[in-house]
């Protein structure tokens, strides 16, 4: 029996003992990834997984991680997937902050921050965007004044997902007003610190996980500085890569939740004549939408196959643009096909699917803004992939 087979046995046995079968194929409660507080079976599963370190399978065991090889992690993932075991420990800590910390943190910082991330005890939020700095992220103004052994932070962040639920924030803050890029530091702060105020953002589609966070004379100890002072931009950029990949990698599904079947909507709200959609123009538009989505999926698969042999290609930059376009086109088609049934907001006059479609359509408008606007992404493709100047 190979080592990997042995590990597979171990994983199976452990999952048999620790995964509550009642949770099979269920998603954790709360806003996925933003760390809801768990109870009952979910809490027990969180505790088992966290103590085993398999919520972060490849992170070093010395910080509480699983210490697995990539191959072992793949086996574990397959085993969990096959029994519908979903980890309730995720979010920014697991997906972005932990990996970044492993690269850039001091030994002391790793010891301090990683174990509670792995156990799912501390939930993190990400302080990046600011009202005055949209696509020009480095134009941030929240200022952390150096007071010797601590910083005093004033300013605000916006679009902070899960800030209301989070225990801690990591983020980028200005520490030098005279240098745009080399005047930014990467800091962490306790969200319970005096002077931190969180205000939820309602989107045009309704409630959202986003918040504004205001800082008034917030004290941040010097030990919370990651990397060197004024050189935090590089750490911040590294983290962004994870974010863009995370968004585009969701593969066509909208963040709010998939919309319903486009062919079914066509049949129900437009109708067929002789087995063919009665509206030939709409039929062509649906075809174009589905063919674009198909091409998108085939391209994602191809890039994956090629990357496995030739290494990653910057061409993936187009996937974020395509993802947004695909989502927005599909949602516009759905709303148009629903006709006046696609204009409901709430109440008994509309079906659940109709109401959900309206909200999903509105939410999709952010897809070409969040995680780098379509314009910024096209700039990046023009520059990095095509080698054009001036971007």
């Amino acid at each position, binding site marked *: 029996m190979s080592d990997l087979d042995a590990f597979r046995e171990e994983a199976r046995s452990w999952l048999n003992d620790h995964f509550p079968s009642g949770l099979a194929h269920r998603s954790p409660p709360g806003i996925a990834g933003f760390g809801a507080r768990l109870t009952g079976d979910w809490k027990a599963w969180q505790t088992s997984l966290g103590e085993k370190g398999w919520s972060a399978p490849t992170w070093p065991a010395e910080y509480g991680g699983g210490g697995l090889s990539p191959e072992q992690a793949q086996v574990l993932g397959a085993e969990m997937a096959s029994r519908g075991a979903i980890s309730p420990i995720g979010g920014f800590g697991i997906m972005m902050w932990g990996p970044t910390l492993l690269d850039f943190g001091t030994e002391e910082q790793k010891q301090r921050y990683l174990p509670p991330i792995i156990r799912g005890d501390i939930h993190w939020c990400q302080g990046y965007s600011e009202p005055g700095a949209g*696509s020009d992220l480095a134009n941030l103004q929240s200022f952390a004044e150096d007071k010797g052994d601590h910083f005093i932070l004033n300013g605000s962040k916006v679009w902070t997902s899960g800030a209301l639920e989070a225990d801690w924030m990591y983020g980028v803050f200005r520490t030098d007003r005279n240098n745009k890029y080399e005047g930014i530091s990467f800091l962490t702060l306790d969200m319970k610190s005096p002077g931190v105020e969180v205000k939820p953002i309602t989107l045009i589609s309704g409630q959202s996980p986003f918040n504004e966070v205001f800082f008034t004379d917030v004290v941040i100890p010097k030990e919370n500085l990651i990397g060197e002072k004024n050189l935090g931009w590089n750490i911040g950029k590294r983290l962004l890569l994870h974010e863009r990949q995370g968004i585009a990698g969701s593969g066509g599904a909208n963040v709010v939740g998939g919309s319903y079947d486009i062919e079914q909507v066509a049949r129900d709200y437009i109708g067929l004549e002789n087995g063919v959609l009665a509206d030939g123009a709409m039929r062509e538009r649906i075809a174009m939408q589905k063919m674009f989505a198909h091409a998108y999926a085939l391209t994602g698969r191809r890039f994956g196959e090629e990357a496995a042999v030739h290494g990653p290609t910057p061409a993936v930059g187009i996937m974020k643009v395509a993802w947004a376009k695909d989502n927005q086109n599909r949602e516009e088609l759905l709303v148009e096909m629903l006709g*006046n049934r696609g204009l*409901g*907001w709430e109440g008994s*006059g509309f079906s659940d699917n109709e109401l959900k479609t309206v909200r999903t359509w509105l939410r999709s*408008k952010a897809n*070409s*803004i969040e995680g780098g*606007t379509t314009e910024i992404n096209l700039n990046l493709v023009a520059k990095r992939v095509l080698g054009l100047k001036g971007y």
Partner: protein
Amino acid sequence: MAVLTEEQNMLKDQAQAWSRDEAPVTRFRKMRDSGTDAGYEQATWQDIAGMGWTGILIPEALGGSGMDYATFGVVLEETGRHLVASPLFASGLVGASALLLAGNDAQKQQWLPGIAAGTSIVTLAVDEGPHHAPEQIAMTADASSGSFTLNGSKVFVLEGGSADAFVVAARTSGTAGETDGITLFLVPADTSGLGVQPLKTADSRGYADLTFRDVKVDAAAVIGTADAGFPILDAVLDRARAGLAAEMLGTACEAFDRTLEYLKTREQFGQVIGSFQSLGHRAATLFMDMEFARSCVEAALRAIDEGSDEVPILCSLAKCKAGEFLHDMSNDMIQMHGGIGMTDEFDAGFYIKRARAAEATFGGQSYHRRRYISHFGI
């Protein structure tokens, strides 16, 4: 903008000043947040009636000012800019048009003074399914001994929750899909058997679904001639389309102006974002769409006033072109504003929600493309 008459210029100035000062989007927001079913505030509605806009089309003898559709369009464009919520369009233009075009003297005497004064709200109930399809009317009106019994339903009736009476298109003969056999009825809202269910819509305007269960009306309720209502309905709808297109043009123009202002002031990477060519070219293209939509809207209104043969084709053109421009502009208003455009706190959401609702009302772009091209024998 077309060369205006003195009268039109005065009304335009009035509508511009009032909308901006007394009924800006903040007031619409307050109405929305109040959760009212009506979709408008009584105070706003009284202001509007007080300025006489409700009577623009109605002859002076019946309490109005006897002006034309082009003039109504000037006002609707201004109120459309600020998303002013009121039954002005549904009653003062659509309901009044039905009576003006085909009402008999008694009906006119009974309803038009109230419409002009803003004390009566009369609206049109036409569609029965998710898409605008006036030929597909299936609702029945069975005649027997001088009265009619109405059964069926109407959906998405504009200001349906506030209306005092409905102009209802029902079928006195034939089957769905035929234009012959349709009759228009004037049905008071309190008629027995008529159920009104207000809807909570994304654009916070007042709409309602209606159900008719053995609703009895007598022959005096018929507008025009029984079985021959379709040409009247079509004419009323064209007036509605042109008027709504004017309102939509205003909505889109305001979205354009606000976005252009943002392009000129918002800085990123040390320069105003309007200086980025991809945004500047889109703004220039949207400007073209705006000018084209305006030409079509003004031509449609003028054609109605001149009694031109081209009313159907120009009204479809106007509704489609205003719809296309508003559609694209409401999308780009969000995109060009970035994250802020996605927040409920900012107004862009109101514009895109109103956009899609207005697009769907009285036929969307796709409907009017089909209607337009059908005039060319293909």
